[in-house]
């Protein structure tokens, strides 16, 4: 199978701008809302969305946090090696907030399940919405659905969706490649 690009840098920018306007429609001035990026790859997207939102709203104090879910995963001891954690940086209470949880790819839904668990340890949010760049809708293991979706992809399990960012990989790009694992 040939790797194919499903989002390039230009389209990705459009998508992020669209996310921002959808979010403003829902959350108005973000006084009660917070963006939480899931470590490690969701944070890249959350960074972009947070930056763009701050520009559009001309507001510097939009609540933004990073959540690590490693210790909450349900595949511990199923994988041959333990996962190494990243930093959780949430400098505000989630109590009573409207949370926008951000990840790059929604696949089985297990990461998001872990994230919901992890989040509860930082307070009880009023509600939680999910924002993802790519939704692989055919492979869900759990009843989890995203509210804001960049692109829906109908891929098969032997394929893998790879999201690349300028900061870490040199260019903004979303690929479908063959999964060799």
């Amino acid at each position: 199978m040939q790797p194919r690009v499903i989002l390039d840098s230009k389209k990705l920018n459009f998508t992020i701008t669209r996310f921002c306007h959808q979010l403003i429609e829902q959350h108005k001035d973000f006084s009660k809302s917070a963006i939480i990026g899931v470590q490690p790859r969701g944070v890249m997207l959350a960074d972009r969305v947070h930056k763009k939102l701050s520009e559009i709203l001309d507001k510097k104090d939009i609540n933004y946090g990073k959540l690590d879910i490693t210790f909450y995963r349900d595949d511990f001891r199923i994988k041959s090696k333990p996962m190494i954690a990243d930093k959780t940086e949430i400098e505000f209470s989630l109590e009573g907030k409207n949370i926008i949880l951000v990840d790059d790819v929604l696949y089985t839904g297990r990461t998001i399940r872990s994230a919901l668990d992890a989040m509860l340890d930082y307070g009880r949010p009023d509600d939680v919405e999910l924002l993802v760049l790519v939704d692989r809708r055919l492979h869900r293991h759990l009843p989890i659905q995203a509210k804001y979706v960049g692109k829906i992809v109908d891929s098969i399990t032997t394929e893998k969706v790879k999201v690349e960012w300028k900061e870490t990989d040199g260019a903004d790009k979303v690929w479908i490649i063959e999964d060799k694992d």
Partner: protein
Amino acid sequence: MSALSQKHLIGLKYLQKSDIDLIFQTADNFKDVLQRPIKKVPSLRDITIANLFFEDSTRTRISFELAEKRLSADTINFSASGSSVKKGETLLDTVRNILAMKVDMIVMRHSSSGAPNFIAKHINANILNAGDGTHEHPTQGLLDGYSVREKFGELKGLNYLIIGDIKHSRVAGSDIPLMLKMGAKVKVCGPPTLIPKYIEELGVTYEPNLRKALEWCDVANVLRIQLERMDIKFIPSLREYSLFYGVNKELLDSIPKKITIMHPGPINRGVELNSDVADSKQSIILQQVENGVAIRMAALYLLGGRN
């Protein structure tokens, strides 16, 4: 993603530098968890851990137990007093019987050096050594290294001094390989009768004079005089030991450098360490205890994650 090279944590001499880095890095994450209002994660919720303490302990046992509970593991506690060990059951039988109840990991302290090695050869569970005789006390070594790293940023290039009874000390047994692997220089200081004969083969130096040794070091780990392990007289009296090797404020103040003082506990106040030092800003003794929980969580997590 990465993993430890070992299935058990029996001694730091068996670990590689990358293993130690990995444990430190994971401990950083757990330290963050311990600062939160909810100090618990569900990582080990399907794991049962037996704490087998064939020898007395306060700090280590509580620290391990807390680390296990913070990781949501189920724990059972065993201490030799009040058990069938008194009726003559062998070590291996005791451990096998406990494992028959479906225990995944064993934390073990024993007064005989090598007891965890012996058990590891016969059973399948992961073993964490919580101190065996005069051999090693790996989690203590790790938390010592971690506390120094926290204070100085890295261990490389530091001058690390261990004062006291090196011969009977499992803390020295773990600190020495850890510090050397991480690139620190190690010196030992104490009465010649309490220094192992071939200590320099390990790559450490020996200095009998306490003042000279202190002038050399950045960090001094003061060990407890363990009278319970001495079957013959190695030192004439505690009073004499204290005169020659006791660390006090007057001595430290007379040295131009500000030395960081550590102690694995419990302290014999007034013998190896005076209260005016133990409770001063120079000492990181309570930070050592605090870091102990994060280090033990990291070790349990990394060993428990191996399939």
